[in-house]
């Protein structure tokens, strides 16, 4: 763990990733203190200062009803991160458990579970999420549900493949011989050997979940106004390009920074943890 962190900080690219992710996380956590206009995250109108190009004190400019873009981006980060964490917190345990069970038990279990997984994987992810959101009310909770539904099968695939390999390892046979229960073998013997791969994928996915959630709200199917969301901010501003460029460029850059940061860390983790195995 310490070693992993040391390698992460030694490589300039992954160091950049750590810096970017720290920035995003800190600004989300301390938005209340950093944001110059915390009240602008809600339905506030200030027609005196509307649609202003970046200038002090509005460093990222203001939107069409005069709200500070910088403050709104900070709060949008908070929503994005909560969404990412919640989606992964639900999708990963489900996906991993199904993958482990299908991979270890094999036979009918494998057939039933993996075909179910294939059904989910066969629908393009954004289309699946969109159809779920189309049926349900477009709220934050339903957005999480939609993204979760499209996310768990990837973990099932990943863990299933690792489990198929680990199952043939001597230590699994040794555990069987010694009389370990199936649950013990699945969760205490095989699962720990999947953890590096799972962590790596989770880090990479943090960025993608944020991206997908932004895409959903860009299409008007995600978080609803007045709650600030990076995707809907880009969508709202796109109509006023190129004149009011700050309406799209800054939220777009914010998405880029978050996704890029998580990806840099994920790539580095893949190299580090992959090399250990």
């Amino acid at each position, binding site marked *: 763990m310490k070693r992993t962190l040391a390698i992460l900080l030694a490589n300039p690219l992954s160091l950049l990733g750590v810096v970017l992710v720290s920035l995003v996380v800190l600004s989300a956590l301390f938005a209340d203190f950093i944001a110059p206009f915390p009240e602008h995250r809600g339905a506030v109108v200030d027609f005196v200062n509307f649609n202003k190009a970046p200038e002090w004190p509005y460093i990222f400019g203001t939107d069409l009803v005069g709200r500070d873009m910088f403050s709104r981006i900070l709060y949008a980060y908070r929503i994005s991160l909560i969404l990412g964490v919640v989606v992964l917190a639900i999708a990963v345990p489900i996906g991993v458990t199904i993958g482990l069970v299908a991979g270890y038990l094999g*036979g009918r279990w494998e057939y039933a579970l993996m075909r179910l997984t294939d059904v989910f994987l066969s629908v393009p992810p954004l289309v699946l999420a969109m159809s779920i959101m189309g049926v349900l009310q477009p709220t934050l909770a339903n957005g999480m549900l939609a993204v979760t539904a499209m996310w768990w099968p990837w973990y099932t695939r990943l863990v299933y493949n690792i489990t198929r390999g680990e199952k043939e*390892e*001597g*230590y699994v*046979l*040794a*555990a*069987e*011989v*010694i*009389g*370990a229960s199936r649950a013990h073998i699945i969760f*205490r*013997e095989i699962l*720990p*050997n999947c*953890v590096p791969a799972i962590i790596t994928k989770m880090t990479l996915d943090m960025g993608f979940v944020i991206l997908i959630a932004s895409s959903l709200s860009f299409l008007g199917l995600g978080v609803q106004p007045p709650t600030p969301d990076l995707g809907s901010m880009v969508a709202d501003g796109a109509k006023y390009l190129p004149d009011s460029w700050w309406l799209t460029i800054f939220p777009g850059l914010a998405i880029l920074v978050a996704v890029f940061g998580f990806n840099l860390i994920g790539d580095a983790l893949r190299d580090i943890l992959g090399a250990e195995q």
Partner: protein
Amino acid sequence: MSAPTLDIENLKLGFKGYTGYTEVLHGISLSVNPGERVALVGESGSGKSVTARIVLGLLQELRAARIEGRVRFEGQDLDSLNRRERHALRGKAMSMIFQDPTSSLNPVFRIGDQFHDVLRRADPRITRDAALGRAASILAEVSVRDAVRVLNAFPFQLSGGLNQRVMIAMALANEPALLIADEPGTALDVTVQAQTLHLMRKLVEDHHTAVLFISHNLGVVREFADQIYVIYKGRIVEQGPTEAVFDGPRHPYTRALMAAVPRLTGGGIPDIDENSPDFGAPLETHEREGRQ
């Protein structure tokens, strides 16, 4: 004489596959008495390892496997036990060690924690400290001096020989009545193998553990076993006390097997028929002394 620890009678095994039914074992019989070291010798694919799996009750759970015949463990017919009862035997009354010690240990746990898991099979309430203490004393029996370092290490931090000793110690930790050794140490180099076999022999003698030793290495078998069964294509072709079989091999296959052992003095390996009709000759039995 008390009941044999393991008594296999006319055991047949077949697998049902897409291409039909394939019989792998054609009725083998063997017995292992308490404290006895019995070797099952044969080439790859002769049916040695599946025999071990059946004894452990692992193949019975496979739907494609058809098993006939009788396997008795300490007088109990394994067929009469349900899955739970067979499960209870594993790890406590019988245990097993494998070819490759390093891959038989889970790479992500420390040796000490794996010992704890093993000891919990027999005593579910054993504390970690008690388990580590017990582990250290068993490790001392296989001449591991710095037990503290070993128990704190991960398997990949230890040498193959050390892992092999750890495996042996783990297998014997719960004082099983029967130990099945499936080509132990084949993955190790010869000197380490000899050393660990020596330790294992001492340990099973001290604990009076019966051993079913599966191997293709005649030199190792001669050193280790009291009784020897030669298996060829799912049939026992020769059986008897080790000395008798080595001094006067009677079955053509046994003779061919012994002729095929590479010698230090050179001279090449004789050509052996892959499938000589002689090898189908009936079972040769050397009488055991003091029995029957």
